[in-house]
């Protein structure tokens, strides 16, 4: 107690000297470096915008050309189908890899090894040549004459199907590793707690393990979706009419290669930007409970910014974000 009093006495006479302003360090290099970067960027923009070899009118025109728009839709369709099917496949492969059955886990390991170890471009071309390898495709029981269904390979595996197949099978290998990492990240105690309450293995997977694994799975899967969207351009080698192929087809006729590449790039940027929105909200959805407070959504942040600019009620307390979900 005497220590407290002593401190109180010592502080009192000096109180007025402590009433000073704290001035932050001035950082001139911040301003200088920013100015240099801005100058370089402006120079580059100027050189592009005033370049007589770039036909800006053509860019504007081809941006909404029906063939380009068709290409955009096909790109989105291929991305969607390949991502959905590959994710389902990835869960199966990850489950096989994690299973205690040595045959299942080795087959899964081999699958990942083969599809990750060879270039995607090579796989796409290979699937395009499938008709040379197998003239007919059939569904039946191996090593018997029992056939349920059969079709001519070249009729069934069009360039588009071959392309989707190649992207899907390749992606499944990558995604299965992401899913596996997500499953491993869930504490073993979670399964035990679920079992001890009488939950079946399937129910436990669906309601307890998967939602927690999703927290780890979603961010890399967002990246994979964006990669997939861009990788669809590789299908140009087997003449699938997605946006990049459409752009090259048009430019081979009018010789405006650069303009059409810019058109395609603008569309890719637009599509990848839009894709990151659902990812953000999915991350929030599956992040519930993982930290004490979720960060506000951009929308909530905007509202807060406006609320704090106006004199009036203070911005909502942090915990508001949790109850708002």
């Amino acid at each position, binding site marked *: 107690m005497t220590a407290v009093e002593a401190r109180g006495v010592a502080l009192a006479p000096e109180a007025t000297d402590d009433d000073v302003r704290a001035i932050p360090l001035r950082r001139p290099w911040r301003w200088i470096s920013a100015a240099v970067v801005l100058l370089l960027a402006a120079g580059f923009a100027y050189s592009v915008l005033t370049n007589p070899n770039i036909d800006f009118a053509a860019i504007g025109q081809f941006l909404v050309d029906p063939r380009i728009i068709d290409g955009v839709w096909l790109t989105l369709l291929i991305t969607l189908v390949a991502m959905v099917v590959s994710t389902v496949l990835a869960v199966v492969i990850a489950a096989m890899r994690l299973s205690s059955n040595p045959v299942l886990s080795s087959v899964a390991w081999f699958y990942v090894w083969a599809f990750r170890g060879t270039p995607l471009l090579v796989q796409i071309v290979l699937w395009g040549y499938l008709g040379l390898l197998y003239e007919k495709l059939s569904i039946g029981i191996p090593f018997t004459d029992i056939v349920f269904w059969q079709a001519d390979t070249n009729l069934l595996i069009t360039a588009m199907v071959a392309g989707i197949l190649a992207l899907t099978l390749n992606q499944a290998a990558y995604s299965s590793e992401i899913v596996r990492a997500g499953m491993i990240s869930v504490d073993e105690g979670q399964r*035990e*707690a679920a*079992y*001890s*309450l*009488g*939950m079946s293995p399937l*129910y436990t997977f669906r309601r307890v393990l998967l939602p*927690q694994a999703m927290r780890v799975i979603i961010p890399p899967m967002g990246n994979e979706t964006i990669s997939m969207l861009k990788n669809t351009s590789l299908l140009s080698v087997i003449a699938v009419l997605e946006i990049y192929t459409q752009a090259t087809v048009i430019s081979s006729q009018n010789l405006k290669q650069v303009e059409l590449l810019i058109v395609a790039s603008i569309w890719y940027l637009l599509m990848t930007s839009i894709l990151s929105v659902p990812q953000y909200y999915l991350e929030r959805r599956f992040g519930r*409970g993982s930290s004490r407070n979720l960060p506000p959504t951009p929308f909530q942040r905007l509202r807060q910014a406006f609320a704090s600019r106006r004199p009036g009620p203070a911005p909502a307390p942090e915990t508001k974000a949790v109850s708002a979900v």
Partner: protein
Amino acid sequence: MSTITTTRTAQDAAVDARPLVEIRRVRKSFGAHQVLRDVSLAVPEGTVTVLLGPSGSGKSTLLRCINHLESIDGGRIIVDGELIGYRQAGHDIHEMTPKQIARQRREIGMVFQRFNLFPHMTALENIVEAPVGIAGMPRAKARAKATELLDRVGLADFAGHYPAQLSGGQQQRVAIARALAMGPKLMLFDEPTSALDPELVGDVLDVMRELANDGMTMIVVTHEIGFARGVADQVVFMDGGVVVEAGRPEDVIDRPQRQRTRDFLESVR
């Protein structure tokens, strides 16, 4: 009853009560390591049994065999007249399907050392999940019951909190409420207070004491000798996968017959 070969004084606290749990000659190995050697034990209905023993003596394993989180290599575990995890066919017993085992586990609540609450669900959602999802209880009824249980463990104001927003002691009390929500006949506790800061232990033990007073049959692994002395009807001392000594707390704790029991009690005091 001749197979129950624990020690002389076992269960005379409630001799007349029917055993809710009968463990008969249970054996269990992990690889070459035999963790349970011929363990036999009876737990009368409405009584509290405390399992004591040094680390690695097989207490957790025994507890986990009772709700078949671990399979056994031999012997029998019977809860309320029903063989757990197996069905009798001829001389041997055969393991049940996961679905049948899940049904049996609904009757047996378990509380873990590390709480194991579901982190993506609020306290209330943790409690409601199993009654609604697997027992098919209407959601409104389950929520009402969960709210009542939260009140009973002293956490009525924390229904909307996620586990990460609760202290260890609060999490453990939610975990107890979650286990109780399925209306179990038997509660298993595996060192429920070992992961808690000392000042939080009391709240959890209070909840368990109340549960015991309400007549719940409980098997508790704990190093809290005070709890064992005050609440247990039977104390079982295990070492090296066998029951060394079992009986009333005042006998086993204050007048242990075996040297191993004495050494252990000396070490935890």
